[in-house]
């Protein structure tokens, strides 16, 4: 064997599991009746999903006047939530693609659920810019390169908003392909264990006739590596392009070259926050403590600390550059952020994103599940506020003093945001019910510490 692991390195999977144990443990939640906890969680999520449906219907029926956005603050909760969800999605690709390229084997127990999270988060994100267009039924002509009815007036390829359309839709579809391809061997495992007619039919359908032949595996590994290789620049490009929506404008506070790396670091930070939130619950509820071990949690806490410090550095750099530029509008925008009427949002952001993750210097904080759960929520809150601060505080006091306004989300805007959590968690609960949350094939490959 050419794979050599150091003998002193602790095992990635604990509990002395055999191959059969892995299959049995991971298939158990899908093969038994859902637990009471699952039903409670699913019902709450589904209720929130219905809130989303109702508030989106109301938005389309009445018009986006039901949102509080206005002439000055033309991007409010909608784009805040869009960037928030897109950012969350990034952790999935980071874990499955970048950690694959770096040969980080601890990724194998968490990559499946993180990729699922990516897909559901991007679905939530896409809702916001789509409905922000108002007349969503003609939206296709505005975002896709389709000729309009009066002749071939095409979309504007000079606009970063259009780049975003391409980036997000590519990101969603490529992530979906990567996720599904990685799942085929596991679906085949479930197929061969299925007892009922319906299960046999559906898992057979989606397993595409997988047998585990060596030739297939050899190609599968090459394909996974290439997909990881192209997903890595893809994920970096997506949030870079999202940041260009802001950075290419001339709004003080947005017009900064630091945005792309700063947004990418923030995306990884918020994504890992959400991965932690979900997995801390999932490992407990589904009894996966031997697969998602304290070692996994600790590794994720370290990534959170690193990226949290990176965004913190970006916040401070932005502030410094605003002063150093000598450009008074830029200086005002940053003073207004920290000490203006939205000071509470700014300092929430600073506290949650820069200060809070510093507790991860202590091993106790990185290895205590309940504490990690609290911190992951803090990170999620902090990253929402980061986007709110960037968008709203830059817009609400712009060049023209007569246009200064205050902005707060309307009831409908808030319900759409809550509703997207419903969509996200409904999808996640269904995923836990019907598909293997942990990549069985890959985990079997790392069971034994080979010498």
């Amino acid at each position, binding site marked *: 064997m050419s794979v050599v692991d150091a003998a002193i390195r602790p095992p990635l999977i604990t509990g002395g599991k055999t191959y059969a144990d892995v299959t049995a443990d991971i298939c158990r939640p899908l093969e038994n009746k859902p637990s009471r906890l699952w039903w409670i969680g699913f019902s709450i999520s589904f209720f929130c999903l219905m809130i989303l449906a109702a508030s989106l219907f109301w938005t389309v029926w009445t018009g986006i006047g039901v949102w509080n956005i206005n002439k000055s603050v033309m991007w409010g909760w909608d784009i805040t939530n869009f960037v928030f969800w897109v950012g969350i999605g990034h952790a999935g690709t980071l874990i499955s693609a970048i950690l694959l390229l770096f040969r980080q084997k601890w990724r194998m127990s968490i990559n499946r659920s993180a990729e699922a999270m990516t897909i559901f988060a991007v679905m939530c994100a896409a809702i916001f810019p789509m409905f922000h267009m108002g007349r969503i039924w003609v939206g296709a002509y505005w975002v896709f390169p389709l000729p309009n009815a009066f002749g071939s007036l095409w979309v504007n390829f000079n606009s970063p908003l259009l780049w975003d359309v391409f980036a997000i839709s590519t990101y969603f579809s490529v992530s979906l392909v990567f996720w599904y391809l990685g799942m085929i061997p596991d679906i085949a495992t479930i197929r061969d264990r299925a007892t009922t007619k319906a299960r046999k039919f559906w898992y057979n359908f989606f397993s595409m*006739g997988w047998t585990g032949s060596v030739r*297939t*595996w050899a190609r599968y590994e090459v394909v996974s590596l290439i997909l990881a290789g192209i997903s890595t620049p893809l994920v970096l490009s997506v949030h870079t392009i999202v940041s260009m929506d802001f950075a290419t404008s001339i709004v003080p506070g947005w017009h900064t070259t630091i945005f792309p790396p700063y947004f990418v670091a923030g995306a990884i930070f918020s994504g890992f926050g959400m991965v932690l939130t979900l997995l801390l619950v999932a490992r407990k509820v589904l009894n996966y403590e031997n697969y998602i071990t304290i070692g996994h949690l600790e590794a994720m806490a370290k990534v959170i600390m690193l990226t949290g410090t990176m965004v913190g550095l970006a916040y401070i750099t932005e502030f410094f550059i605003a002063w150093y530029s000598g450009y008074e509008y830029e200086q005002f925008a940053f003073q207004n952020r920290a000490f203006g009427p939205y000071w509470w949002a700014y300092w929430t952001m600073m506290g949650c994103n820069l200060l809070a993750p510093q507790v991860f210097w202590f091993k106790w904080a990185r290895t205590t599940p309940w504490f990690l759960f609290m911190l992951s929520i803090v990170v999620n809150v902090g990253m929402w506020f980061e986007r709110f601060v960037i968008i709203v505080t830059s817009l609400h006091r712009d060049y023209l003093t007569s246009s200064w306004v205050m902005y707060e989300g309307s009831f409908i805007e808030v319900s759409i945001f809550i509703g997207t959590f419903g969509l996200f968690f409904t999808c996640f609960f269904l995923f836990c019910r019907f598909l293997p949350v942990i990549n069985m*094939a890959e985990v*079997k490959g790392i069971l034994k510490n080979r010498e």
Partner: protein
Amino acid sequence: MFCFSTSINKRNLIYGVFDSEVNLMSAVEEVREKGMEVFDCYTPFPVHHLDTAMGISRTRLSIAAFLCGLTGFCLGLLLQFYMMVFDWPMNIGGKPSDYHMLPSMVPVVFECTILCTAFGLAFLFFFRNKLGHGVRPDILDLRQTDDHLLIAFDADTLDLNAKNELVVILNKNKVLSTHEYVGQYAVNHGGVHA
């Protein structure tokens, strides 16, 4: 070596069941040393270097991926040049609508490249392995996707001597059990093919 995933239909196979990839690997290596061909192995997880041990050459899917990417790159450029330069050059804020706008074409060209690579590669992967929705899986042992690792030989290519030798090698490497399989429409030679 140009070989699609090999179907077990219409074949007489002898297969051994293992529970450890180390034993499977050494069995494959010993069998190959004797000059016998392994028909295929079936494993529930990827066993690294098993393909090279079996003498399977590296897949050319990576070349195909490059070609898909190149196609996407060209399509992305073509799309934007046609729309923005030839068909309807737009003047928005005095920004250029000719080759000067190449820098702002980069993101969309990049995304098209990635999109075509990923989808092209995925479809070629399915095609190459004869995978598809509704394809009947060729399963020899229901636990080959769970915890059993299988090594299969084409019985028609082995004479009695070779078969005996094979059984010795498999037993030496702690095979759990050996079976014969007669595929649909395959002729049963009674286990011996002269």
